[in-house]
């Protein structure tokens, strides 16, 4: 099955899957629903809005490409659509902050980057 374009392959989009059978949503792409096994689901584009669940600012990176970006903030965000995702975020984000995604270049790839909603 062809993979629809999202940030993992260079497109400015966050996609998720919504099961037509049990209604559960999943972020890691698969050919089936990991809850009920159904192969009937919709590919959806997320709004990019969510709430910060956890943060960790990386100060010690292990490759030349990532070291150039230190410090960078790794965040887990609970998307409004009901899934959790890992992304980058502004350095001042705190757990519970309402955030919105833009996209940024990181170590040769496009990554989602969350900032606090005004």
């Amino acid at each position, binding site marked *: 099955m062809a993979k629809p374009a999202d940030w*993992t392959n260079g497109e400015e989009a966050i996609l998720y899957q919504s099961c037509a059978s049990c209604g559960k949503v999943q*972020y*890691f*792409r698969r050919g089936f629903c990991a809850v009920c096994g159904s192969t009937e689901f919709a590919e959806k584009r997320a709004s990019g809005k969510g709430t910060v*669940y*956890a*943060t*960790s*600012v*990386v*100060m*010690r*990176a*292990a*490759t030349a490409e*990532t070291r150039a*970006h230190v410090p*960078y903030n*790794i*965040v*887990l965000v609970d998307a409004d659509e009901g899934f*959790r*995702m*890992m*992304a*980058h975020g502004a350095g001042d984000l705190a*757990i*519970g902050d309402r955030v919105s995604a833009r996209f940024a270049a*990181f*170590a040769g*790839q496009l*990554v989602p980057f969350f900032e606090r909603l005004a």
Partner: protein
Amino acid sequence: MTYITGVGLTSYGKHERLTSLDLMSKAAELAIADAGLKRAEIDGILCGYSTVSPHIMLATVFAEHFGIRPSYAHAVQVGGATGLAMTMLAHHLVDAGVVKNVLVVGGENRLTGQSRDASIVALAQVGHPDYEVPLGPTIPAYYGLVASRYMHEYGVTEADLAEFAVLMRKHALSHPGAQFHKPITVADVLASKPVASPLKLLDCCPVSDGGAAFVVSREPTNAARVKIRGCAQAHTHQHVTAAPALSELGAEISIAKAKAASGVAISDVRYAAVYDSFTITLAMLLEDLGLAKRGEAAARVRSGYFSRHGEMPLNTHGGLLSYGHCGVGGAMAHLVEAHLQMTERAGQRQVRDASVVLLHGDGGVLSSHVSMFLERV
């Protein structure tokens, strides 16, 4: 009925010029001698993996190298939980009558066999290849995320976490084989180099060379009477993005199943051997396992509860944080130390009573858990 009849452990730190097979062999030799057995009496081999020298058939590579022709052999891979997962499998294999004496062995020249960067990159691959790894996380960052959430929900502070590093270092001071012998304070931990917030260098275990092994047998082979009472596993996720809520992590599931399998209660336990890859790992696991109330493990460290002469001595060899972490062998050192305590061979580290022991291992990012109870009979 199964017994841990022998244990072997090298010092951890730098072992220049020794390969993973060399370190496994040293530990295996010690464990078999400790059990009072000969190589030919070992009919099963379980081994872990080496990130420095990966091989698709490490157990047979080791068996040939070491000079054993076992009737049962393969490798096991569950990250940091591998040592206890192998012990659990050995217990069931021996109990089922498949084999009589299983050698469980792990060893790796992780410190001198590759660069620290290479180790960090290799370990970060436990993350999701498409949705996590491209973001540049490290193992400390995965645990840093968990730590930030745990601190937020339960009011744990960085100074609280530092207590665990100080305790493990204090314990390592009295073990000649430990990687670190310089005392540290809470202030030292707080002032150490930031790695992945809220974790700093001294919140993280080191990369080490080392090897550990033990023998699991159907019958006692010497004076030691260390029985495996029962064990259980739980696997709730692989990637931290897919982890359940903090109140639903695998340690609580595996300990409940291990209690049911063994009939042992936490109130029976006299010594604890708990995985401590980071200070947050140890804090969370102690609370998940019921060895402290939520958010109160650090207070128990401060009161001496987990010290050598406290009510629940913990990782008296210094744990991963200060004895060292060579991969699979890392957490196996916890079991070796528990065995020495149970058989009253821990010398200056000897605790008053190690008659019933709880062991717990964790692999991935709190992904895979093994809980086990041992009893001296």
